């Protein structure tokens, strides 16, 4: 008894970003990716697995399933795009680009209710499309965090409009003023290499302390850091949501912003941004003006851990007496296959003990804006992660991505743990003596 949906199929793929047929057919449905998929682990159902999602995409391509079937939409967006499946697939199926193309198809063809569109624009496009807007928002948040206006503000319902109440609940105490691109740089006395720092919208605002720590750690390693001025958001969240045109717009701006000498490494402190920047080449492959430049740009991008681990670290000077456990950000471990480097760096910190958690590479539920738009599933994943983290009895959990950072923090809190969450660079910074000893930023 074959399923015959054929009669019902009205919409197929068309227009831009059609999922590549050869990529789709590379899947031999062996199922080896299933256990690595967080949504499959939680639900146990085939549709929520990479293989199931690929089969659905193929079914649309074969005209057996309507593009606008609600379940198709559900599955394409229930996916965290964490790319764990891609990292383990023996046949090398490029899952990421496929699901992004499918989402782009949905964005193009699906008439969303007006309120949803407004909210998505407001919630995603508004703050993330311009760093300055983000900065203003975060400054506001920082202010009210400090003066304790949270309750009052929440009551007004302003935050609800853009689902910022979830965002707000996730924010850690914001420690420092935003790092404005172009305004600071680090120049050690001895310069062996020069890098351009990708500032990022969340990193430069909520986690500006991490970006500054990066400047210091690099300086200790005789690397000069510049923060090119006109850079913008990487566009990762737009790609994940199928908003390809917006993503391409941002990509072009960044390529121009980093044109500079055209060779120095572009260093990223957020795994999610890094993964997106490394794919500019793919994103703009059909843009005659930018295709080559995009590919070259992507070739320069390195995660800060990738870059540091490849150099011989100048031996850190200060003991960090703590036991830490490392949570692998999906976009580092799966999308960029950076697994050994962070661990290698941590192992070089004097006094530090590292203890591995169970399921270190299983998504924590953050995945871009996933924890904002799919709170339940994200919470379940967060709980599972918190349990594994707490079980290590570490003093601190270390990660390398702002989304994971916030998700870990809220999940641990929800599960009654006060364990601090830190970016790996913060640990390194401490091992070099922290802000007091480090080379100061100079105002550019």
């Amino acid at each position: 008894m074959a399923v015959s949906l054929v009669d019902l199929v009205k919409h197929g793929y068309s227009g831009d970003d059609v999922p590549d047929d050869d990529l789709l057919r590379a899947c031999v449905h062996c199922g080896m990716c299933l256990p690595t998929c967080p949504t499959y682990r939680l639900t146990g159902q085939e549709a929520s697995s990479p293989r199931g999602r690929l089969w659905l995409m193929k079914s649309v391509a074969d005209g057996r399933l309507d593009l606008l079937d609600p379940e198709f939409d559900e599955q394409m967006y229930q996916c965290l795009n964490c790319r764990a499946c891609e990292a383990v697939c023996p046949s090398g199926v490029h899952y990421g680009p496929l699901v992004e193309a499918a989402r782009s198809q949905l964005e193009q063809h699906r008439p969303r209710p007006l309120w949803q569109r407004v909210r998505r624009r407001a919630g995603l496009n508004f703050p993330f499309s311009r760093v300055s807007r983000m900065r203003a928002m975060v400054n506001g948040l920082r202010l009210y965090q400090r003066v304790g206006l949270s309750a009052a503000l929440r009551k007004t319902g302003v935050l609800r409009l853009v689902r910022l109440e979830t965002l707000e609940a996730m924010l850690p105490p914001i420690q420092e003023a935003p790092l404005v691109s172009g305004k600071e740089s680090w120049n050690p006395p001895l310069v062996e290499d020069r890098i351009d720092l990708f500032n990022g919208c969340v990193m430069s605002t909520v986690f500006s302390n991490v970006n500054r720590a990066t400047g210091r750690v690099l300086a200790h390693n005789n690397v000069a850091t510049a923060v090119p001025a006109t850079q913008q958001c990487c566009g990762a969240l737009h790609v994940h949501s199928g908003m390809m045109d917006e993503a391409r717009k941002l990509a072009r701006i960044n390529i121009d912003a980093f044109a500079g000498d055209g060779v120095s490494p572009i260093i990223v402190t957020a795994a999610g941004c890094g993964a997106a920047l490394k794919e500019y080449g793919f994103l703009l492959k059909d843009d005659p003006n930018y295709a080559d430049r995009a590919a070259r740009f992507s070739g320069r991008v390195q995660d800060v851990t990738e870059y540091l681990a490849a150099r011989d670290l100048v031996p850190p000077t200060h003991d960090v007496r703590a036991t830490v456990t490392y949570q692998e950000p999906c976009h580092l471990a799966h999308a960029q296959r950076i697994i050994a480097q962070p661990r290698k760096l941590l192992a070089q910190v004097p006094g530090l003990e590292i203890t591995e958690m169970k399921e270190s590479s299983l998504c924590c539920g953050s995945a871009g804006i996933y924890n904002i738009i799919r709170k339940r599933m994200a919470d379940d994943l967060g709980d599972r992660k918190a349990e594994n983290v707490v079980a290590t009895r570490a003093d601190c959990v270390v990660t390398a991505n702002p989304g994971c950072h916030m998700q870990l923090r809220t999940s641990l809190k929800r599960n009654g743990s006060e364990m601090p969450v830190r970016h790996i660079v913060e640990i390194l910074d401490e091992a070099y003596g922290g802000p007091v000893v480090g080379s100061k930023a100079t105002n550019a």
Partner: protein
Amino acid sequence: MDRQQLLEELERIVGHDGIRHRPVDLLVYEYDGSVDGAVDTAAPTAVVLPRSTDQVSAIVKLAKRADLPVVARGAGTGLSGGAVAQRGGIIVSLTRMDRVLDVNLLDRTALVEPGVINLELSDGVRDQGLFFAPDPSSQKACTIGGNVAENSGGPHCLKYGVTTNHILGLEIVLPNGEVIWTRTAQDGYGGLDLTAAVVGSEGMFGIVTKALVKLTPIPAATTVMLAAFGSLDDASRAVTSIIAAGNLPASLEMMDNLTIQAVEPAYHAGYPMDAAAVLLIESDGHPVEVAESVEEIEALCREAGATSLRSADTAAERDLLWKGRKMALAAMGRLAPNYYLHDTVVPRSRLPETLETVEAIARHHKLQIANVFHAGDGNLHPLMLFDRRKPGDVERILEASHDLIHECVRVGGMLSGEHGIGTEKRGYMTLVFSESDLRAMAGLKEAFDPDQRFNPEKVIPTGYMCGEVKQLHLQAMQQQHGIVPV
């Protein structure tokens, strides 16, 4: 019972969240890990995801009332169409029953639910110095329930035996909904060894809801050797002489050049790209035993013409060498869009000639065949590469399969060493079994499942192919395996 009523009653058993029934939901349950074209896809009537034995039992009783087939499903990595609901009916997906309920160190046993993933069981007890010995290459994904149903093997089964040697008892739901614990023949037990019957029964006798499995102590020392050879023949002669000299390695695996081409660029395991074949030989046991046997095996490999030899003693090096081997099958997507593999077993002394036969078949049908297999047990895995979209490819695969199976049977071989018969090899059963043999098997099925409710249209063939001319045989293949020219 009409569909609506069925769905309502199922929902009452497993809850709203435990049932899938819209056409789009069923679409993703129409396949398993079997190769495209070798097994027909078929959609079930509904899928349920129970969380307890009681729920499974209630589902089965309901299916009996509704007179619907029931098909158990684990991870769906099976390679013979076992988890595909050929006649529709209810798929019982055991993925939500995935707890390890108890591990006992004195007993060296684990009590697990069927959805536990094979490798995760081993990983969970490794700190206690134990592991679950059956290690199918799919162990990262496949479930204990599926392993039990298929009696799965793996590289280490050469020394440690297959799944059936590691199952001490099973809680099963019978086709009438009754729940029983099966026991295993042992001292002090006066009853039939129902466990022996259920393991390998491909979900046709009972649905496994719990398994009491044996855990094996991790050996004190382990060494993996990689031996490269200039010809397939040299490598297979090395296998025969290692075994004949009285060595029983933990595993003895062979990969040919085509496989190395698929795997090495992806995993950088360190297999020489120019070798015609490599052997992966693992020795384990007492450190003194291992050291001596490694020396002896190296000498035998050299005698057989090994061009290079390397051994790995650290866990990291060993894992890397193994990774390439374990991923080989699933990495074939890198060489060709489709592959079709057989799983025949031959007596190990017939390996050299059988490999020659495989080469001859490949030449004759102008096919690329990659060989990656459990050489120590004589369990072949010839992977025939093709592209469904190219006219003529499918027919060539079909004819080559026919020749291959006949040749293996001719030298005393069997149809399947570990992947099971399912729907895929059902049509070939009459090649190795007589009508009486099949009647005896059917009798056992009848005893468990008189209504043929569990996993119908598997294993036991409906028609007979013995003595039929090749043409008729091909027609039957086309009908049964759905391999039809595009």
